[in-house]
């Protein structure tokens, strides 16, 4: 025991820790840089880069670290690269860690909800902004436990640097054991030293997790004292185990006065409709698709679709699932490519240069932002790591270069308009579906788009939440005169709000015309059948 303590406190062994940490730091730091490059290559749209990265991964993940150490130390000098031992070991460890870190990064990036990525694109975010502001912050949070693992494994792997004469903890232990024959006291001591180091990494990992815990900010505002128990590994912030937190987040009743004042159903009179139609007919064309064609393999999704929408017009797209409604909307702001035909928004071919050549993703993003096509999705697609207010203000700053003050003012204004000022600081997951969709609408409206595309905005909502969202959309159409294209299954809503409905089937418009006329007196038998099915489905009062 006294021997054990003697070796535990021996400056010679303690000095080895420094080199152990140096090799580990080089390995992790270099591995992170290399891993970022590798992950970037693997996620790249250029197949050659992805193939090179894949080959690297196969080689360096598939060969033992000890061979890589010896290679970096003994083979590289033969081609003129003679690195000092610590650097050679650090290089080998970095090359070895890189593919593991790259896979972690890739998993983290791919793990971020695709819908949020699409929403970011629709808001005009370039790939870089999207990565930096939406994907990375969420991916990093999910990757921290894996990073902790990787750091511990790198620390232990650094002991292999002993084979290339780096005087780290393991090499010092074995040399000491050879000269003193105190085999076990020495190895127990160095084992304990490793344990202390790996424990320190665990503590750092938990601390970082705590720092990045999105619920922490909320707790602070509620002045909730965190207990030490929360930091212990078996306690994680989890709504299923923390009833009080779950309660606090779910039950946040909406103050009645914050709701938009109840307006009576806004069905326009026939006279008003005629007047409105006449005004719109004189307006400029906002969106125009010509002979739009698209197939997924053998499956034709859009078959030469023509659609013209004028400024201030509200068009409802109706039709069974798979009729091409969503695809049409996604083509309009070029979230999807198509095979033939043209799409013009405000007279411009979004996503193509003057010669009709396809632009880079970055240039398309910039164009989306300048042309101004807002989009609202069935699944809301709010940025999960940002508060309601930041979901609106963030893109204004990142895409449109607004100052923080202006962006916040605009966000507050829009939250007020959708009746959610009291939930400004709530995270999306703490909002109801209806509230989330209202925030999503506010976010889409924030940059003052010229056209708003709504892709089944109420389909994912519980029936009792549908009306609050429809009410917001209704007011946009009638009070603000916003140009909108809505794909929906809400027949009555289409009747009340839309100027025109277009009925899609098999990727083409089979019938279109003034909303009330088509809905009450369909000419095409397919339209009639669809409408009667929808009528039969819906219960008397609920809109669905």
């Amino acid at each position, binding site marked *: 025991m006294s021997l054990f303590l003697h070796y535990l406190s021996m400056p010679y062994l303690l*000095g080895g820790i420094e080199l152990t940490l140096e090799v580990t730091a080089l390995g992790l730091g270099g591995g992170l840089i290399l891993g970022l490059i590798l992950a970037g290559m693997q996620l790249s749209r250029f197949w050659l880069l992805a193939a090179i990265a894949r080959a690297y991964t196969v080689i360096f993940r598939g060969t033992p670290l000890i061979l890589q150490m010896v290679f970096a130390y*003994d083979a590289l000098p033969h081609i003129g690269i003679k690195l000092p031992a*610590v650097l050679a070991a650090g290089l080998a460890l970095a090359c070895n860690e890189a593919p593991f870190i790259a896979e972690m990064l890739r998993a983290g990036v791919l793990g971020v909800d695709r819908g949020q990525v699409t929403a970011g694109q629709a808001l005009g975010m370039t790939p870089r902004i999207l990565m930096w502001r939406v994907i990375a912050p969420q991916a990093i949070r999910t990757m921290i436990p894996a990073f902790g693992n990787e750091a511990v494994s790198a620390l232990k792997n650094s002991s292999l640097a002993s*084979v290339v*004469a780096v005087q780290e903890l393991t090499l010092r232990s074995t040399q*000491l054991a050879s*000269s*003193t024959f105190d085999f076990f006291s020495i190895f127990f001591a160095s084992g304990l030293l490793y344990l202390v180091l790996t424990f320190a990494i665990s503590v750092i990992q938990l601390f970082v997790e705590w720092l990045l815990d999105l619920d922490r900010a909320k707790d602070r505002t509620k002045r909730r004292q965190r207990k030490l128990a929360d930091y212990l590994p078996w306690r994680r912030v989890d709504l299923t185990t923390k009833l009080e937190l779950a309660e606090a987040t779910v039950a946040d009743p909406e103050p009645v006065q914050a709701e938009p004042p109840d307006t009576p159903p806004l069905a326009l009179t026939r006279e008003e409709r005629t007047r409105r139609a006449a005004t719109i007919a004189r307006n400029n064309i906002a969106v125009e698709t010509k002979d739009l064609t698209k197939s997924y393999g053998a499956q034709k999704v859009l078959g030469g679709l023509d659609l013209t929408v004028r400024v201030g017009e509200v068009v409802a797209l109706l039709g069974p699932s798979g009729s091409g409604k969503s695809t049409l909307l996604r083509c309009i702001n070029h979230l999807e490519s198509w095979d033939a035909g043209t799409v013009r928004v405000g007279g411009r071919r979004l996503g193509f240069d003057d010669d009709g050549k396809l632009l880079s993703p970055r240039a398309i993003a910039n164009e989306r932002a300048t042309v101004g096509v807002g989009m609202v999705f069935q699944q809301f697609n709010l940025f999960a790591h940002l508060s309601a207010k930041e979901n609106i203000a963030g893109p204004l700053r990142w895409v449109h270069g607004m100052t923080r003050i202006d962006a916040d003012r605009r966000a507050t204004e829009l939250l007020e308009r959708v009746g959610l000022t009291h939930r400004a600081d709530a995270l999306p997951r703490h909002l109801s579906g209806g509230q989330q969709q209202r925030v999503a609408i506010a976010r889409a409206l924030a940059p003052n788009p010229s056209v708003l595309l709504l892709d089944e905005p109420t389909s994912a909502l519980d029936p009792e939440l549908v009306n609050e969202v429809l009410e917001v959309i209704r007011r946009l159409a009638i009070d603000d005169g916003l140009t909108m294209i809505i794909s929906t299954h809400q027949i009555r809503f289409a009747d009340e709000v839309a100027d025109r409905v277009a009925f899609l089937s098999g990727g083409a418009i089979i019938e279109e015309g003034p909303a009330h006329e088509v809905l009450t007196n369909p000419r095409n038998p397919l339209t009639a059948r669809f409408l009667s099915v929808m009528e039969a489905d819906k219960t008397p009062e609920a809109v669905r």
Partner: protein
Amino acid sequence: MERRVLPQISHHARRGTARTSLPWRKVALGAAIALAAVAAAPLSAQAAAPAACTALQDKYPDWKGKTLVNAINPHTPGYETIDPKDPSKYIGFDIDLGEAIGECLGFKLTYKPVTFAALLTTLAAGQADIVISDIYATKERAKAADFITYSKVFDGVLVAKGNPKGINGINMSMCGAAAAENTGYVEVPLIQALVPECKKAGKAEPTIQLYDNNANCIQAILAGRADTYVNDVNTVDSAVKAYPDKLEKAIAVTIPYSVGIAVPKDKPKFRDAVLAALIEVQKAGTHMELLKKHGLDVNNFKEPDILTAD
């Protein structure tokens, strides 16, 4: 470049024990101090060396004032280990002999600890300038390096107390036994050569367990995993001294090799310089003194020879 790698070995660099900055920076400083010390005190150094050494330094001036890297496998008590009292230093016969040669030619040595099997690889990769680490000079190894032989070889057979398997050398008594050996040791092929003989005699074959240092081989016997470990007799003696209740030396056997200093094949001039210096060191009686100082058998003494592949 290399002497910047292992600061902790250079005495100058180690003097400041609080190692807070990056090592290579400190090492560079240490190396600078070392060089400065050498440059500043050439007179006293030369005065201490025999006149013959002064002549050698004139004849072979390339290494004078330099600091060379000596790759060692510091797991052989008596020859080369770290100093248990000050683990930043290496001690042993080979260490002292190397420094005596260095003193004669005017260079200093720093040390690079590697596994036994990596000694010649490290030399060939240019990561070390010389290997003085109780390595037996064989024709096979001479393909990788040139040797200057300096010591006869007597091997001891280390066994558990009481020699339960009755092993008495690298012979038929080893049939069916488990031998612990260092990876790359010359004893390995000698034991392997017993396999067909044992088979022919209808006995079980000997098995070999390969470890990467001396201490692990000794532990293998202590743990009952191996029956014997054949190595340099002095190493065997020191193991018995450390565990007198558990180990014993069965017998000393003669092995037809010499111990050699390994130098790169492409530096014949350096090889000749080291040979000449070793002769002077032996003439001055230093070699014999060092054997006595480290408790080694004086019968190990051998006049130097060159062993190369051709």
